[in-house]
């Protein structure tokens, strides 16, 4: 007779200890910069610039969270810029990707596999590789130092993973639904709009969120290169200018960083379940 399968997951005490120790070491590496950064934001400057090093702040306060608004003049503007850039990028990605993902999920035509591969290969050229022609292109269009120049190139590199995620999601929608609509005389477009889109909405929302987070996390190189006006700078570039100065006011920089990452943290907190499954969906062959 077979014993109940849960027994396989019963750990001995030293195994549990070992696992928790392993998790602790792993998470220490992952989270140490955040803990240290947060403690730094609480320390007064005089304590920061003193040795020997002390980990725990003495008379820590949230003062830096007040003073940074004066010392980083464009701070609120940087956050707004970050949201504008990421938001616009997300909208463009969805407009392009929803139909494309449906095409890849449902229609088989010659070269579809190759074309999907070509879309995924786009990520190979992200970063600085295409910077030179893009820079010249933006300059000849006269759009350097505008939001446009920071939004448009980034979108191309958000498309591949969005297509991949959404295609996986849409492929799981039963084909019978399309066929039923088709038998009833619905056009392809009508089927997409009235049958597929409503059912795929949860998947589209996950893609929208991951795209927004990706856009928010990755805005650096294009914003650094295609824009030199600080009033249009997104948060990472705005703070980078501040970081590059001779005398870095570390506690305020860290305070500003924490306010800047708050939106992403809030998103993680509320949507963690969807995110963990969403980000890794399609990772494994079914």
């Amino acid at each position, binding site marked *: 007779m077979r014993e109940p399968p849960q027994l396989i997951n019963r750990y001995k005490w030293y195994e549990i200890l070992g696992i928790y120790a392993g998790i602790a070491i*792993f998470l220490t590496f992952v989270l140490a910069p955040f803990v240290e950064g947060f403690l730094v934001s609480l320390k007064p400057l005089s304590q920061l610039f003193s040795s020997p*090093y002390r980990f725990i702040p003495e008379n820590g306060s949230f003062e830096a969270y007040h003073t940074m608004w004066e010392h980083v003049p464009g701070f609120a503007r940087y956050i707004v810029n970050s949201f504008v850039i990421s938001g616009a990028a997300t909208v463009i990605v969805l407009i392009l990707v929803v139909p494309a993902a449906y095409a890849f999920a449902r*229609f088989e*035509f010659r070269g579809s596999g190759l074309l999907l591969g070509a879309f995924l*290969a786009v990520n190979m050229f992200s970063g600085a590789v295409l910077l030179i022609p893009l820079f010249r*292109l933006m300059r000849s269009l006269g759009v350097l130092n505008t939001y446009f120049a920071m939004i448009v190139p980034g979108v191309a590199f958000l498309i591949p993973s969005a297509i991949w995620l959404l295609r996986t999601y849409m492929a799981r929608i039963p084909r019978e639904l399309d066929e039923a609509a088709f038998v009833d005389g619905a056009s392809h477009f009508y089927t997409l709009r009235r049958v597929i889109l409503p059912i795929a909405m949860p998947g589209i929302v996950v893609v929208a969120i991951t795209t927004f987070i990706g856009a928010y996390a990755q805005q650096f190189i294009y914003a650094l290169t295609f824009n030199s006006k600080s009033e249009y700078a997104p948060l990472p570039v705005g703070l980078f200018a501040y*970081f590059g100065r001779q005398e870095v006011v570390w506690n305020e920089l860290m305070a500003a960083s924490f306010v*800047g990452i708050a939106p992403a943290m809030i998103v*993680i907190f509320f949507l963690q379940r969807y995110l963990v499954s969403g*980000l890794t969906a399609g990772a494994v062959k079914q």
Partner: protein
Amino acid sequence: MSVQRNAIIFAWILLLPALLYVTAIVAYPLVDTFILSFTDASLKKTTNWVGWANYDKIFNETFAEVIIRTFVWTFFSVSIKMIIGTFGAAMLNAAVPGRALFRVLTMPPWIVPMAIGIFMWGWMYNGQFGMISGMLQRFGLVDGPVAFLAQGSTAFWATVITDVWIGVPMVTLYMLAGMQAIPQDLYEAAWTDGAGRFYRFRRITLPLLVPSMITMSMLSLISTFNSFDIIWILTRGGPSGETTTMIIDTYKTAIGSNKYGEGAARAVLICIFLSIFCLCYFRVTSRLSANDKR
């Protein structure tokens, strides 16, 4: 037949916007990079064809050093990411209380704006007052302060570790997904035969994880090879070029000194390396799947 054809036309219409977009932003610049690499394009109004001159220049300079450094940097970063990520995934795959929370806690480095995570590392590496130098001194491991980013050898490893930190969450969650896709029956069968936990990990989990590992190493290899933000923010390729990888060198040449032609030649070289990686990847995966079928 005409229904079939209609469907295909519809599919192409759906694909067209994304296709055009990627053509304009990726394919066209790619071709343009290639063309520019044979010219002396700069801020000047006129651009002349210079043939292979830019490539000759690259190979006459200290560029071999940059290429080797890029490969060493990438190799260590990807390997350490894979080791830590697989270790983390194995830990988070264990059925212990709190694992849902621990999984979420691995995500911040990935989700937070990259530059901001890098600022935090910038402080940690600070020689006079930073955490790492401070802790090392407190435990008596070093005598005086260590300015990690001011010396070539330590700056190199400092940038590698920051890159690892940013890449680990993705590797961990991907490997975790891979582990969870392994059929539970295998473990149960091994367990009824009396196989221990470590034995099961070594003989079931690891072998079945190989395809995931190859895919992840490949994805990680491409993004690491292209890694720009970390080095640029922490060291800008310094001190004295010790952290200058190919991508940093390209940026400095093209955007820093406005030598678009010479920069483009470097970018072409990067593309060639990336294509070679991809080809290797496809050969390995096709061989693997052929083995599966046998």
